[in-house]
């Protein structure tokens, strides 16, 4: 039945010549990214920041959805909570950004644990729907607490003038924030994928009973994965909120964010380290391109592309690229054959 799920990650061995080339290229790319603000236009930095942000969100989703196999359709709840924590603390309590960011992360973790304990017992569609409902419900709660959150009218972080507690970092600043967070997320994912924790998640993904029989405390591992996912997502939301200055519940808890996280992770390749990044980079540039060139048709095209990708690349770009390298072809039709009735 469900043949295509997460694939394990083959990490290139740094000792091989190819490995060194990779390390070198990676370092060069990294250096380029660090130096980029000097070379690139401000608005493009902003676009890149957005790409990094989505890559981080997709990586965070990948921990619970890709590694542990629990398809969360409500990860945006952490994003929103992170954003609102920062906004509320800065706007209402006069905090500066950095301590607020720390609290936002903590809120993400705490909420993931509280929500995860009951909900991670559900599987499959039920888990997906439950998480989605939590996110939608949370949005309504934020809307209904106007004294704290500004309600539907949104809340504005003091970013300019005398009221600003932390000076606004500007496009370059947020570029670096998102870049650093992405690197952190990558490091975390890499670390997780090679750790006992990562192995336990992959075991849970493939067979929860088997995992438990090997001594893996599945409940604890799932909740921990959810918490880690929540942490990264909340931090992303916190930075995003500061960048936006004014945030609204409809945007910060938008189901669209969740869907994009999932789409990016799935199209890139779930359960891999670079899949979500590849997915995020690819889709963000694609949607940007479509938006600029097909002013009114782009959303329709985007929908069509998602449909085609799900049908023909169910294992994600990364896995298909591997397949292409080893067999010199991608078996689009075999993928279809495997999944159709």
């Amino acid at each position, binding site marked *: 039945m469900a043949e295509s799920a997460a694939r394990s990650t083959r990490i290139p061995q740094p000792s091989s010549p190819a490995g060194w080339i990779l390390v070198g290229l990676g370092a060069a790319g990294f250096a380029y990214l660090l130096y980029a603000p000097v070379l690139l236009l401000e608005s493009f930095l902003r676009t890149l920041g957005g790409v990094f942000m989505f890559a981080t969100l997709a990586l965070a989703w990948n921990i619970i959805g890709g590694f542990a196999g629990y398809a969360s359709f409500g990860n945006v709840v952490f994003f929103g909570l992170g954003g609102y924590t920062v906004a509320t603390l800065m706007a209402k309590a006069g905090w500066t950004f950095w301590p607020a960011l720390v609290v936002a992360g903590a809120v993400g973790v705490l909420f993931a644990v509280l929500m995860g304990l009951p909900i991670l017992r559900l599987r499959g*569609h039920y888990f997906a729907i*439950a998480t989605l409902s939590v996110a939608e419900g949370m949005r309504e709660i934020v*809307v209904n607490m106007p004294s704290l959150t500004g309600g539907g009218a949104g809340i504005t972080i003091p970013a300019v003038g005398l009221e600003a507690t932390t000076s606004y970092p500007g496009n370059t600043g947020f570029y670096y924030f998102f870049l650093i967070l992405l690197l952190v997320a990558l490091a975390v994912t890499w670390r997780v994928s090679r750790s006992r924790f990562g192995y336990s998640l992959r075991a849970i993904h493939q067979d929860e009973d088997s995992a438990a029989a090997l001594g893996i405390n599945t409940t604890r591992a799932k909740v921990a994965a959810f918490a880690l996912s929540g942490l990264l997502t909340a931090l992303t939301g916190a930075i995003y909120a500061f960048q936006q200055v004014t945030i609204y519940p409809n945007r910060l808890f938008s189901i669209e964010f969740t869907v994009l996280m999932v789409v990016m992770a799935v199209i890139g390749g779930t359960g891999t380290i670079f899949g979500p990044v590849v997915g995020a980079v690819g889709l963000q540039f694609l949607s940007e391109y479509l938006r600029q060139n097909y002013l009114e048709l782009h959303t329709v095209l985007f929908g069509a592309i998602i449909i085609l990708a799900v049908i023909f690349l169910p294992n994600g770009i990364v896995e298909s690229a591997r397949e292409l390298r080893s067999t010199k072809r991608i078996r689009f039709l075999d993928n279809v054959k495997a999944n159709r009735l």
Partner: protein
Amino acid sequence: MEQFLQATINGLLQGGLYALVGVGFSLVWGVIHVVNIAHGAFVILGAYVAWKLDGAFGIDPLLGLVVAAVLLFVIGYAVQRGVINLVINAPIWMTLLLTFGLELLLVNGLILIFTGDYRSIATSYASGGLSFGDVRIPYGRLLAFGLAVLLTGLLAMFMSRSKTGQAINATGMDRVTARLMGINARHIYALTFAISAALAGAAGTMVGIVGTFNPVDAGVFTLRSFVIAVLGGLGNMWGALAGGIVLGLVEAWSGQYLSGTLIHAIGFGVLILVLIVRPTGLLGRPYSEARAET
């Protein structure tokens, strides 16, 4: 007291309409195990079909409802057979994503064709109402309610009495064994999806008669369908009716005693609670096999 009574009637009538919106969604989820995010888009599509027929050819919306249902049936069959069927055995997020892509395509396609303007199907009978003292029962909503109950009932009868209905049930319970009985599962899956889409089309027409709609509303109907399907138990037709009415009543009552903007939050709260406490829904699933495990 009158206020409470009025709220109850509002909730009941609205709940009937919800049931019609959600019943097809529940059917598809229960039988072919696909959470169809594009369901709301089918509802809206149905509304546009009836609206267009009324506007362009002066066809009465009740007749338009039939046309919308038939058209959606055909579309639903084709979409399942040609698209969704290709990933039917893939992990759940695949089908979720696929139907999400479909939703994007449909909703934005509708915006391109019909613009994002709010529409409504004007009828002579939608606005009047029965009065009992200060309590009113609007005809349009009563009609929608009656039709919803009728269609749900017909569907439930179809499922339990007809040969095809039985085949759908059987396929939902055990696909392999159903095929051993000579049931063409591919056809049954497509048929189930088609019925679901047809019901969505009918529901859409009623939505258009009693209220306003535009393509962007699709998501709201899908979200409500989640709640209704889970409340009622997946694939349980009478359950969907009950789920719709419970949702309608909860919303109406909470609207009376709480801030109006909390209505949705309460709907989701109920859903989460049911998922955790009783994942088989209020009326239980028609199938013995439990899919929600703990």
